[in-house]
């Protein structure tokens, strides 16, 4: 299965995960400070800054895109509960 690397800049941890893994599944396992609420892309609690490698994440769904707009989220911000890591390397930190 294809793999990808995710780095949580706030705690300095890099982890290799299967392609398709959502950021939140990894962050809670390694203790990064990305706090989440609904985990369904609705509440916006898990807003996360993608420091680099945003092209290695799956495109946001219509729902995620709308929530990001409602939150006035800056560029390169995603919902950790929705963003799936596809390949390569991604560096993230809590928004």
């Amino acid at each position, binding site marked *: 299965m294809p793999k990808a690397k995710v780095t949580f800049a706030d705690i300095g941890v890099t*982890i290799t995960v299967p392609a398709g893994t959502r950021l939140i599944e990894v962050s809670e396992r390694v203790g990064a400070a990305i706090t989440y609420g609904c985990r369904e892309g609705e509440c916006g609690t898990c807003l996360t800054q993608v420091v680099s490698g945003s092209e290695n994440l799956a495109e946001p769904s219509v729902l995620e895109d709308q929530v990001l707009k409602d*939150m*006035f989220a800056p560029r390169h911000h995603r919902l950790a509960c929705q963003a799936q890591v596809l390949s390569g390397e991604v560096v993230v930190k809590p*928004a």
Partner: protein
Amino acid sequence: MKTGIMNTSPAPAARIQPGQAVEIAAGVHWVGVLDPALRSFDIVLSTANGTTYNSYVVRGDKGVAVIDTVKEAFAPEFFKRLESICSYDEITTIVINHLEPDHSGALPELMKRAPQAHVYLSSRAPMMFKALLKSTDVTPSAFTLVKTGSSLDLGGRSLAFYQTPFLHWPDTQCTFVPELGVLFSGDVFGCHFCDDRLFNDKVGDFRFSFEYYYAHIMRPFRQHVLTGLELLEPLALQLIAPAHGPVLRQNPRHYVQRYRELAEGRLDDQVLGEKTLLIFYISAYGATRRMAEAIATGAEDEAGVRVSLYDLEVGDVSPFIDLIETADGIAIGSPTINGDAAKPVWDLLSSLHAVHIRGKLGATFGSFGWSGEAVTLMEDRLKGLRLHVPFPGLRLKLVPTEEELAQCRDLGRKLARHLTTPPDELFAEAA
């Protein structure tokens, strides 16, 4: 630094007068309201002394800022007090440190009365702001989203913003007046305590309220408390003006230090370098107890895991909350009685919202006579609390056989191994 903080002499305390603002620093007034009759806040928090909803006004040469508002039902009293210190057309700025209704309830009306005022919110607040206004006829004419590093000038007084997410909502922030050393801290350093002498050196003893408030409001976000303190501790604090409870003008740094002590105090300092697995059980005839003991035996086979076993039949689950907060994993066992787990199990599982437990390892087990629903019900609850439950609950009928006890030991080993295996190896295995 000349701060203009009011003196803290031993003279008898002045009491808050109806319709009158209280000066707390040069050009800074308290314009909040008292709610002395409140005994239950947000349904879940008890208070023997009511609470206050604190709002403040900062006057500069170029503008007047209102920091936070009050619960909607108290709006008339708030506006009367606000009018004693400024007129609506003077208000240039409204800052909302936290949009929960007890602080934003009077905001729509304030925006109507001072339509020229520019609203400043945390960058995490827009969705809540929209939700707050949707049932009103107020449309914000202008608002700005601020983050740590943002500031604005009121003329001789400035407001510097410090984003403190999850203390205790995503949108929470603090606002600092560096010229005075005054920190408007929102719910941080607040408490539900109502006393019309207002200042911490004049009101009755509120230490228990301060501790209770931290334990119920801030404790689940301990990691974020520590992050927030990194921002707030370096500030030259002369006075903390929280959104609830007394204004902290005497030794304000004490309260900052107390937050650090509360957030850092960890039982697991004693087991540094080891993972901790807590096994809770309750047992009618000893079968679930034997399962628990076998799970513990299996888990102890794994080096680097400290296993503890507790019988929930003692009744009071409160001591276990502290243990669970700092544990890496928990397993819970119950027999099935009339299709459900035993009450002490639910007492425990309904108390865990007070601490951070998301992402911890969870497992369930239990012996049963008829149908064994308890295990699945407990498992659903653990998943609902966002624990990580990688292994299906272990349920067996009546008295465990040697083979079944071996399954329990195997579950214990798997749980312990899960705790000691680096996450990327677990992800690789899952793949």
